[in-house]
Each structure stands twice: as structure tokens, then as C-alpha cells.
């Protein structure tokens, strides 16, 4: 099987409002994809459609299953953290581990216990006694111990402090991920995930505005620290974004627009843009 998720003309309407507007995309196996878009852009709706949580129109196949009609089969191989999901308040840490072990054939108890041991969680603790961060830690420990072929993380680290967030993404990459697995992440903290992503998908107003591997992004987008005397020459090459840092102009170019790397190197120091800068530039409306 080539694609883990394959969408063609995926559309989701809420009454008259179109949340997802006929998008096409393919996500191959063994990738870590960042699905990035502003609030209300349709990213959560897209993920919900893929997880069989909402009905939709168009064609969508996840691990070869139709999420509308084959959700029960699909869930054997998929795990997810939904952005608004919360663990029930009455659940105890040890009961949660027992339950997931009982119902999930791919759950690794030792692994979950190892993650839990790294936190302040106690086996007898109930969710109602936990801080927001601790609840997320428990949820992540459970999910990371499931050997799923597709893992969908919708804002997985909300409420976590930065130390744990860094550690989580490191575990995700080193412990969890391998070539058989696929991870789709959405988050507002783009700078924390960009070094682990293999692919990038920008979504805006229910449409995909950029879908590329990180290598392609690195080749295609070039940021130039333009020297003072070459600003007008640089502007002539139609940068997709420009900003000023300490009095210096920083411009972002799309080499698909016809400018070459050599041309740009003549204007000043070149480098790869950060995903956050690229995202801001893309979402501005100057380029869509």
C-alpha cells in the first residue's frame, strides 16, 4: 500500500459553511506530517473525517479503509489524541492502564508504565486530582504505548510545560516512530515540531495551500538578509514576504516563482526559512 491517507475531493459542510473544501492529498507511510493552519482553517475537521468521527463528502481512504463505514476495523491500527479530548474525571491511573491493556491488542504495558514513572503521576491518582498538564501526560503515556500504524495528534501538548513538551517530541521521534508508522501532528507551537517533521501541509480556509516534504520546502523557499543597497533590486524579484530585523530587510522568496538561488545569493546572505516564518508569509494572503 502506498498511501496511509488518501483524500480526493474531501469536503465537509456545516450547514452553509464549508469547513473543508474539496481537498486532495496523499500521506505515504513512514512520514511525520505537520498539518498547520490558523484556527477554523479546517485542519481539525480534516482529521476528524480521517478518524471516522464526522460524516463527509468525497473520497477518503485511511489505511485502505473508508472511515465512514469501516471505522471499527480502522481503529485497530489508528490511535489519536483529539484537541478537546479529556480523560474522564473518575479514571484512576492504574485503571486507565488496565483498561487500555484490556481492550487494545497493540498496547505495551511496560512502555506506558515507563512513561508514567517519568511523571509525578501515582497509580491510585484520579484524573480529578490532576493538573491539566498531568492529565495530558497520562493521555500521552497511554497513546505512546500503543503500537499504531497511524497516530494523529491534534494539539497534543496543550497545557504541558516546555521541558515536558521537548521530552515528549524527543520520545516520539526516538522511541515511537519508525518507517512503518505515520504520524500527523497539528499544533500552534510550530517551532517545537519543525525539526521532527518530514512533511508539511498548510491549510487555509478549507483548502491546502502547501503540501511538500521538508526537503522540497528547503529547496523551494529561500530567506535572504538583503543588504541595504540591494533592497529595490530584491523587491523587483517579488518576495512573498518581507520584514525588518534590526534594521535589515529579511525577504522570503519562492524559487518556484522563477528566481534562482544564485540570483538571491547576490542580494545577501541566504538561509532556509523557519516553518513559522513560512507559515506567516503563506497565510498573509499575498500568496495563496
Amino acid at each position, binding site marked *: 500500500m502506498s498511501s496511509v491517507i488518501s483524500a480526493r475531493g474531501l469536503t465537509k459542510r456545516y450547514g452553509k459553511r464549508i469547513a473543508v473544501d474539496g481537498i486532495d492529498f496523499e500521506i505515504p507511510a513512514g512520514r511525520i506530517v505537520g498539518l498547520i493552519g490558523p484556527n477554523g482553517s479546517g485542519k481539525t475537521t480534516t482529521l476528524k473525517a480521517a478518524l471516522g468521527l464526522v460524516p463527509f463528502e468525497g473520497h477518503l481512504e485511511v489505511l485502505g479503509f473508508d472511515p465512514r463505514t469501516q471505522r471499527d476495523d480502522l*481503529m*485497530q491500527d489508528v490511535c489519536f*489524541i*483529539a484537541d478537546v*479530548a*479529556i480523560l*474522564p474525571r*473518575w479514571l484512576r491511573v492504574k485503571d486507565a492502564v488496565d*483498561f487500555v491493556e484490556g*481492550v487494545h491488542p497493540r498496547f505495551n504495558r511496560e512502555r506506558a508504565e515507563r512513561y508514567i514513572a517519568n511523571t509525578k503521576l501515582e497509580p491510585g491518582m484520579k484524573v480529578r486530582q490532576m493538573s491539566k498538564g498531568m492529565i495530558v501526560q497520562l493521555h500521552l503515556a497511554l497513546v505512546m504505548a500503543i503500537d499504531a500504524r497511524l497516530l494523529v495528534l491534534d494539539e497534543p501538548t496543550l497545557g504541558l510545560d516546555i521541558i515536558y513538551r521537548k521530552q515528549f517530541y524527543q520520545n516520539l521521534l526516538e522511541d515511537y516512530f519508525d518507517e512503518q508508522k505515520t504520524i500527523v501532528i497539528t499544533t500552534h507551537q510550530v517551532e517545537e515540531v519543525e525539526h521532527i517533521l518530514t512533511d508539511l501541509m498548510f491549510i487555509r480556509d478549507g483548502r491546502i495551500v502547501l503540501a511538500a516534504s521538508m526537503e522540497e520546502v528547503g529547496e523551494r523557499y529561500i530567506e535572504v538578509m538583503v543588504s541595504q543597497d540591494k533592497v529595490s533590486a530584491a523587491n523587483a524579484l517579488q518576495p512573498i514576504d518581507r520584514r525588518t530585523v534590526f534594521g535589515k530587510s529579511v525577504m522570503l522568496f519562492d524559487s518556484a516563482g522563477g528566481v534562482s538561488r544564485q540570483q538571491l545569493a547576490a542580494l545577501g546572505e541566504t538561509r532556509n526559512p523557519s516553518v513559522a516564518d513560512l507559515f506567516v508569509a503563506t497565510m498573509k494572503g499575498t500568496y495563496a
Partner: protein
Amino acid sequence: MNTKTMKWLLQREFWEYKGSMFWAPLIVAGLLVLLMGGGLLYGLGQHFPSRLTIDGHTLESGGHTVRVAIDLQHKIARVASSAYLGAAAPLFALMAVVIFSYCLGTLHDERRDRSILFWKSLPVSDGMTVLSKAATAMIVAPLITIVLATVSSLLLLFVLCLAVSLNGVHMFGIVLASPDLYLSPLRLLALLPVYVVWALPTVGWLMLVSSWARSKPILWAVGVPLIGLLVVKWATFAMDNLAGEPSNLMHYASGAAARILTGVVPGIWYSFTGAPAALRPSDDGFDPGSLLTSSYGTLATADAWIGFAIGAAMLYAAMRLRRYRDEG
């Protein structure tokens, strides 16, 4: 059907509703034993009547010894050993309340606290989840109640025997030898299938409302049938006056409303089909065996199975709602 998953789903329901399913009946059972048992001991110990007339036989107490005719002694023991479970009636009343509120809350609570998205991230189908909740309501909760009722009633029977034996009436032997003592709990267990058939319309309706209502499921669950009744009442009133022909519509409507709201009350099947002779007090106390046969007799009515089918359909609808409802 994966039985291991089902076992964990039932366990999960028990964790969540341990307070109302287990602790509440346990506390009530404890209070029953304490208050009724204490009352028996105190009443019979301190104030055992010197002349007691039971069923036309007069007991004379000479000092503390009461000479009771052997056949009367047998009669008391038989009544005690066949009807002792009646002492636990408050537990069954509590059970009806607990099951009602459980069914109304269970599919609503998981949507309200958004834990539904966690449960749905695991390989557990909606059908199995809804089934586990229905089984918790109609099988697990009654089983817990039957066990607690049996234990507490046996304790009370023991206290009664103890109290009268202090006064010289020895019933232990007769009570222990009475087959009814052992058969009564089994009869309760045997009634469970009858209970499921009559409870399903109510369980189905309440769980359907629970999975459908955005808020305040209790208002929908009770309000819809009541408003429906009002509408029917008004319509029949108009029809009776215009057509001059009395219709039976109101009769059916109130029957349906009763079925979807009171089906979880144990023994309610008699009110749906007419009380049998066995429930009326007879010369011999009452015959618990006939309670069983008359209960199963209610299953011979078409009403029982029409309700069962409608209940099952509502449960299915609750499952479909849980499957496709977008939780925002």
C-alpha cells in the same frame, strides 16, 4: 463479539458508577439490617407479648417460655423463610431509581466531559459500548441488588430467629430445613430475564435521550412523553365531542408513556398486565413459586414483545447517534 473487551467495558461502567451502583445499595442494606434488625431484637426481646394471637391460635407465655403449637410454629417459619426477601424491598426501589438515572446519564456524561473522544480513540465499537451500558443497567445493577438483598434479608431472618428463640420459640431448625429459604434467591435470579424484557423499553428510551439531548436529558425524557400525553388528551377530547365516538387512543398513549418511563421498576409487569392472584395475601402467607410462574406468564402477552422490539430499536438508534454525532 469480543468477550474480553466486553468484560473491560463492564468494568469501566462499574468504575464510573461505583457510587450509585454499589456504595448506595450497600449503605441502604447496612441501614436496613441495623435499623430493622435492631428494632426486631429490641421489640421482641423487651416486649414479647404475654398473650399473642396469631391466626386464631392464642399463645400463652408462661414466664419467658412460650408454648407454641407445632403446626403454628411451622407456619411462622414457612412465612418467614418464603417472604424474608421482602425485607429488602427498599433496595429494589433504590435500584429502580439508580438504573433510571444511570441510563439517562451514561451517554450524556461522556459527551459533556468530552471523554467520548478518548473512548472512541480505542478499538471499541459504538455497538459494543452501548450494549455494555445496557447490560450494566439491566443485568449488572440487578445482580448487585439481588446479592445485597439476599445477604441483608438472610441477616434479618437470622436476627428474627434469634429474637424469637430468646423467647423460647425455636425456629432455626424449621427455617433452615425450609426449601424456600434456598429457593427464594434463585427465584429472584430466575426473574432477571423477565425484568430485562420489561425494562428494555425504558432503558432504550432513556439511553436514546441520553445520546441525543444537548443538555438536560431529564427534561426531554420526561417532558416528551408528558407533552405527548397532553396532545393526545386534547385530540381525543376534541374527537369525542365532534365524532361522538369515544376513542381508545388515550388508553394506548398512557400505556406507552408508562412503559418507557417505569419499566425499570421490578415487578412493574404486573401493573402492565394485571396483578395475579398470587400477590394477594392468602391463608398461607404467599406462594413465592407462583410469583415466578405468573411473572413468566406476562411474557405470553404481545405487549411485552412489542415493547421489547421498540426498546431494542431505540437502543440501536442510541448507538447510531453515538457513532455519527459530531462532538464539536
